[in-house]
């Protein structure tokens, strides 16, 4: 039950408040989850983080930076948002929901049915984070998003300030398999890779799976096999991904179905990636 609501005007104020209220406090960005029916968030104190500095989309020398409090709909209105992210933003099928949901919020929630995480991990996005030091100073950091996901407990009171997309040449894509557009997905599959013109191969491959109850995870062995050239065809990749995907049977589909989808989606992306690279 939420007992206190704070609206902070500065990042420092936000982090001071969250430190003060410790484990019972949470950040409120768009608010699509905290007050939602059956929400897993059990905060007693929420801190509204919608300050101006977290709502910008800007191009920098390092790439595109999207403020954590930028809503899905606002991002879709911005032409600088890359196609793979636009597609993922639209997985939230309700425009009303997209008016509320924020990019930072979706990343921070780390739900297994996350709209954005699979493709952002596949794209090797980075997070600009801010913490408060013990002596009250702001500490900024740039964290690979995969690290943020793998070590989520370490970032509980870390504020995501911006999401940085600094690899414009990289192929990234995701697919979300649902019975209807707004139904919960059976599985979400993300795929990212760089293409080596010199070696004519894909490398730095990332294959990301989102499915309950396992959450968001990567298929490291398969990625390695592709990077090492042990997997060279879409058919080989399809089988390997299908074999390595962890899934359970639930009301969204059987484990076999989910594994099949992971394989076929990955194979499809593999083919698309090669085609996009001119091979």
């Amino acid at each position, binding site marked *: *039950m*939420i*007992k*206190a*609501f*704070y*609206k902070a005007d500065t990042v420092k104020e936000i982090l001071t408040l969250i430190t003060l209220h410790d484990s019972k406090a949470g950040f*409120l960005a768009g*608010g*699509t989850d*905290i*007050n*939602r*029916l*059956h929400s897993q968030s059990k905060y007693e104190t*929420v801190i*509204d983080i919608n300050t101006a500095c977290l709502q910008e989309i800007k191009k920098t020398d390092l790439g595109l930076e999207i403020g954590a409090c930028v809503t899905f709909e606002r991002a879709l209105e911005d032409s600088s948002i890359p196609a793979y992210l636009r597609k993922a933003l639209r997985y939230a*099928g*309700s*425009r*009303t*929901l997209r*008016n*509320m949901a924020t990019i930072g919020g979706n990343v921070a929630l780390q739900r297994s049915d996350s709209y954005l995480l699979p493709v952002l991990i596949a794209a090797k996005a980075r997070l600009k984070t801010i913490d408060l030091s013990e002596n009250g100073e702001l500490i900024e950091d740039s964290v690979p998003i995969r690290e943020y996901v793998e070590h989520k407990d370490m970032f509980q009171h870390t504020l995501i300030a911006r999401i940085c997309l600094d690899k414009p040449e990289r192929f990234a894509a995701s697919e979300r*398999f649902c*019975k*209807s*557009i*707004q*139904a*919960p997905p*059976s599985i979400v599959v993300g795929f990212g890779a760089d293409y080596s013109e010199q070696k004519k191969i894909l490398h730095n491959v990332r294959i990301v799976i989102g499915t309950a109850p396992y959450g968001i995870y990567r298929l490291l062995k398969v990625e390695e096999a592709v990077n090492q050239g042990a997997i060279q065809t879409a058919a080989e990749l399809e089988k390997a991904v299908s074999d390595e995907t962890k899934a359970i049977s*639930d*009301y969204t*589909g*059987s484990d*076999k*179905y989910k*594994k*099949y*989808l992971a394989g*076929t*989606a990955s194979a*499809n992306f593999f083919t698309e990636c090669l085609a996009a690279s001119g091979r």
Partner: protein
Amino acid sequence: MTITCNINHRQKSLICEPGDSVQKILYDAGYIAVRNSDDGEGFAGSDTILVDGIPKYASLLLPGQIDGKNLITPDGLAKGRTLTVIQQAMIDAGVVQSAYNAPAAALLITDLFNRIPEPAGKDVDEALSGLFNRATGYKQFYNAVELAKSRLNNTEYCGDILPEFRNELKHVGTVKPKIDGKKLVAGWRAYVEDMVEPGSCILKMVLSPYAHAYINSIDISKALAIDGVVDIITYENCPDVYYGQAGQGFPEPSPYDRKMFNKKLRHVGDRVAAIIAENSQAAEIASSLIDVSYEVLKPVLTIDDAMKKNAPIVHNSVVEYVVGAPENLQEYNKKADERDGKVIYQFPIHGNPHKNIAASVSGGIGDIEKGFSQADVIIEREYTTSQVQCTPLETHVVYAKMRGDKLILHASTQVPWHMRRIVAAACGISENQIQVIKERVGGGYGSKQDILLEDVAGYASYKTGRSVFYRFTREQEFIANSTRHPMKISVKLGAKKDGSLTGIYMNVKANTGPTGNHCLTVPMNACSKSLPLVLCENVKFDVTTFYSNIPPTGAYQGYGAPKGSYAMQMALAELADKLEMDPLELIEKNRVGKGVMLEILRCLGEGREGTPALIESCGLEEALKKGAELIKWGKREISDSTDISIGKGVVIVQQGSGLPGLDHSCADIKMVSDGSFMLHSGGADLGTGLDTVSVKFASEVLCVDMDQVAILSGDTDNTPFDTGAYASSGTFFSGSASKLAAEDLKKNILQAASEILEENPADLILIYPGAVKSLKSGKLLSYREIGHEVLTGTGRGQLTGTASFTTDKSAFPYGAHFCQAAVNTRTGEIKIEKYYALQDCGTPINPELALGQIYGGVLKSIGHTLYEEIVLNDEGECVNPVLRDYGVPMISELPDVFEAVLIDTDDPYGPYGAKSVSEVSTNGAAPVIANAIHDAVGIWIRDWPITPEKVLKGLGKF
């Protein structure tokens, strides 16, 4: 905390808690069009508001998020009593029907026009993507936007032109604003929740966590001691009365197999205790203090489970019969367990509760064995259907209060008089001590035919003297509300090489769940609305319904027909495939038409012998011809993608128009002293426009504009009896009663005028707009003059007309559905590219509303076919009791091309030639989509929902 915001251009301060939902705060502050359809799921959009000009779900917002903001709520759109152009366009386009979130839709469309002055179809898709609409299937929103655009820009309307019928009539068949459209779209007080008075108690139900269990003991003492708790009702202190919850005509074919509370619990969500409390906090605390000891039993979840030799017995009850008890009943009851209570049949329906059989029936015509022996080809297939939910935007709700010794129920119901009878029986009082007032119904679709909460809320109010408000949560809608009976239907068809049918056998097994709600009639309906569609001399059917521990079942739009239609129409397509015939050719070869006598109906009565019926009107020929042209039947469509195969399907459908011989509708009408009219109809308008139908009929008969006829309907103290709005009876029965009452009044007007004019009544006629004219003398007498004259102290008294309508005549609505589906063979995804529903509903009285109901019915059934399913785990718990997880279709799921076509027929028995429209449209989607999938990829999917996984399995992908 106190927040301040600008709401609808006025500064407001609101006192609230930090964790409150903004939806609740706004509703409680009087912004009643900010409604709750999903308990804060952030999905249905009934709670949409604009925050600084941006649409958001109010139920997801915390008060702190609107502090200092500018808000627009749906009730802030109209200026006083004047609608906006957009709101009026929505009424005129036919999208304002049950309308629970029509105000929110108006707000979203207003926002759309604010952002994009010339919105295109894709902009409408986006704008309404966060709004769930169950009644009208979204399609007419595009028309509403086009209409609003043309009116705002003063340009010509570019949308679909709404058809009109019967040029010789003034109101019937024409597009006229729905008479309650204004208050519904504007968001004025209309629904049960809007009637709740300050200081009322709430009822919180403690629900069974187990699908099958006995209550060993229950201790409510600690809970009763909580400040604010008024009373708690359990099986220990509830009335010792057995009844059924099915709102059917008395004596019901459904057994009385429950009391208000029972020692045996038969589904997760069953009633354990009702807490009546002065506030929700007290009720919440009390619910945690009720100490219940359970003996948990193994649940029965499927038909196969129920049929097993040593299956747990859901009703190991004492069985009684009001009439027709079998001779061995005493012996039979020796095995009963008193904790299971009783099952009381009003008359035999061949149940055997100790074998989990609630009801069974068999019948047929001709000689089935002979029929199959004459066949060149025989196929036999089994089809299964899942459990789906009506999901009305307004959940089940009632407000009960005492006025002196009278119990008043403000209800959202399809059956005010059945409700009064059942609640009276449950409370042990006479029916005249109860007044049921049907408020506007925010979606019923069959589930509000059942008395699911009014019995306990009514009793609570009667017992305590307090006003009691009880609203189902969305989760209760899934676990404690009527759903479609899951079924297994075997169909065996025999045919000659030329496709003519020689024999049909249908074996229906149905799962009725914890009670025998509609247990005979829904499964029978699977036969009675599918078998009479084809010509065959040898037909046999068997129906068996089983008790189980799944969530309750009952009536749902289409009743049993969608399931029977799925099986029968798919079997026909499979037969055509085996015969290597075009399925359309096979349908044409075997379908019924005008002039056919349906002998099969003799054995398909509802718990009694039926009556053969002659088909007096049938639009199947035209529907099939037009549909084939629209979809380019016979042309193979090729996709640009190698992954996608495209196929087409066709089916025919039928329903009835009420229940001849069972349904009964009454109406009366009186002339008011200024010459206008007050019509009292027993009919229950569910939002489908029945009141508008009645007013149209009376206005037509009395030659006045519709605004000269006011209507009061569905009020058991102030309007005459009506069996209710179910079985597609509204226009045919309730409408006929209104028409006959007006005709009765017409006679009396002419008689009164003849006395005033001193002329022969035979020389007088009614003329528009509201006068009597003498054909002999040419004299005119206005209704105003008549209305005054008869009430002057020397006149003949108030002029009235009354009617009681019954009939043994049937008027069958027919239709043909065509579908083009694209199947992705890599992912299994199914996309409905084109869907044409061509419906013969006789004369469409309200064409725009009729079309809306067809779109709504079809999209519901597309939902059932492709997306929706109540999923239970092994313990009988529903694992997806929220709208998103359950899978209701949104605007994004509309077929790319979606067209409803009204086929014009004129039925001799229907009022002004009308037949029913809404239910019949739900019968086509499942078989036509399945058939199109087969045409696309060569696989038959014989169980719904038809999911991508089943497609992939069928294709052997894993």
